[in-house]
C-alpha cells in the first residue's frame, strides 16, 4: 500500500524507520507501531506540512484511523515528516529491500544507528549497541554520517559509556 501511495503521487517518497526498519538488519526489534517517514508535497506556499492527504488517501481504501495512526495490515502506522537534516538524508538515501516479492524502502542501517544516537533514549542506545554487536554497520559510512551531522561528541560519549571496558 505504501508503494501504491507513492505511485499515486500522494507523497514524494517514503521509507520505513524505527524498530521495524531496524528489524531489516537486526533480530526482530519489539515494537507496537510502524514509523514511516514521508517527504510531503508542499501545499501551495505554506511551510507547514499536513498529513491530511495521506489520511484521506487511506480512508478511501477503508483503512481505520486511530488518533495519529492509520491501521495498515493490522499495524498502527505513523507517518512522520523528516524533522531534521539527518532524517532528511536518511529518507533520500533509503534503500529498497525485497520482502517476499514486495519492494519496501527502508533506512540504511547506518542512518538508523545515527538516528538512534541522536534521539538518545535508553532504548535507542540499546538499539545502537545491537547494531554494533551484530556487525550490521559499515563503520566508515557510519562515521561519515556521525561527522556530517555533528554527532561526534555524542558518539565519543557513547563509546566511553558502553564500548570501553
Amino acid at each position, binding site marked *: 500500500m505504501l508503494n501504491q501511495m507513492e505511485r499515486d503521487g500522494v507523497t514524494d517518497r517514503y521509507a520505513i*524507520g524505527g524498530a521495524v526498519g531496524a528489524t531489516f538488519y537486526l533480530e526482530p526489534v519489539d515494537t507496537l507501531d510502524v514509523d514511516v517517514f514521508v517527504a510531503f508535497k508542499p501545499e501551495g506556499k505554506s511551510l507547514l506540512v499536513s498529513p491530511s492527504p495521506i489520511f484521506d488517501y487511506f480512508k478511501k481504501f477503508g483503512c481505520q484511523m486511530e488518533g495519529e495512526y492509520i491501521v495498515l495490515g493490522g499495524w498502527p502506522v505513523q507517518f512522520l515528516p523528516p524533522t531534521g537534516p539527518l532524517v532528511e538524508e536518511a529518507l533520500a538515501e533509503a534503500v529498497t529491500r525485497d520482502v517476499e516479492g514486495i519492494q519496501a524502502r527502508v533506512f540504511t542501517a547506518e542512518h538508523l544507528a545515527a538516528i538512534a544516537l541522536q534521539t538518545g533514549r535508553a532504548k535507542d542506545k540499546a538499539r545502537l549497541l545491537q547494531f554494533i554487536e551484530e556487525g550490521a554497520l559499515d563503520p566508515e559510512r557510519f562515521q561519515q554520517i556521525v561527522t556530517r551531522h555533528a554527532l561526534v561528541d555524542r558518539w565519543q560519549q557513547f563509546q566511553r559509556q558502553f564500548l570501553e571496558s
Partner: protein
Amino acid sequence: MSFDLQRILESKRRYRAKLAERPVAEKLRLLDAMRERALTIRNSSQTIVREEPPNYGRKV
C-alpha cells in the same frame, strides 16, 4: 548443576545473531507475533498500548 553466566550470555548472543540472519519476511512475521503478545500482556495490566514517538532531531 551450576549456572555459568558467561555461557548463558554467549548462547543468548548466538541466538540473537541467528535471529538477525533470518529472512526479513520471517522476522516481520515474528514481529507480528511479538506485538500480539505484547498487546495481550499490556492490555491485561493497563490501557495504554502505544509508544510515544521519539523526537527525531526535531527542528526548533
